């Protein structure tokens, strides 16, 4: 049992450490945001599993489960809101969103390749 707890715990810490280090290596803020997800999902789930194994069905275990659910759900919302804010900030000279208006997304690789393949007019 102790071995399982140790493995879960160290795996969670390694995932968090790798995510933090790789976030530092990314080129822009959009790429960096991807690395908020592993600690909020994988690490939190592993730590909660370790707490359940260590403590059993006690109140702190269920609080840890609640924290994991909070991190899982709210991280997605925060990431989306942050990316939207960055996009609005990038476009502020040419575009301001009206109420309820969607933020124009960046062209995908497929769109860029199609544009490049089109004959020049």
């Amino acid at each position, binding site marked *: 049992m*102790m071995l399982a*707890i*140790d493995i879960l*715990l*160290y795996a*969670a*810490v390694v995932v*968090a*450490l790798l*995510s*933090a*280090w790789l*976030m*530092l290596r990314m080129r*822009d*803020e959009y790429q*960096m*945001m991807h*690395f*908020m997800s592993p*600690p*909020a999902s994988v*690490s*939190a789930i592993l*730590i*909660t599993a370790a*707490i359940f194994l*260590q*403590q059993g069905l*006690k*109140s*702190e275990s269920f*609080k*840890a489960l*609640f*924290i994991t659910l*909070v*991190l899982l759900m*709210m*991280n997605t*919302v*925060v*990431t989306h*809101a*942050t990316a*939207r*804010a*960055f996009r*609005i*900030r990038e476009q*502020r000279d040419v575009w301001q969103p009206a109420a309820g208006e969607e933020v124009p997304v960046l062209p995908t690789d497929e769109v860029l390749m199609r544009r490049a393949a089109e004959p020049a007019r």
Partner: protein
Amino acid sequence: MTAWMIGSTALLIALIPCGWIALTASTEKRLVGLEMTGILCTLELMLLTIAFNRTPFMDLAVALGLLSFGAGMVFAHFLAQNL
């Protein structure tokens, strides 16, 4: 020294890149670093609660998890408003 103590100490190292980003990077990157710090500190408080066997302190982790969500949303909102 228990595995919980070792894990919580090792997790503190993950805060160094976030601190570096917060000190040196652009405004957008600093916000991402702040949000990452909120997640890591929540995990750190969970580990420390079990490491020191002070189970009521798990409430601190709950509070931080909820408040870091609000902080991220507020900063994102003001960043979009040309802060």
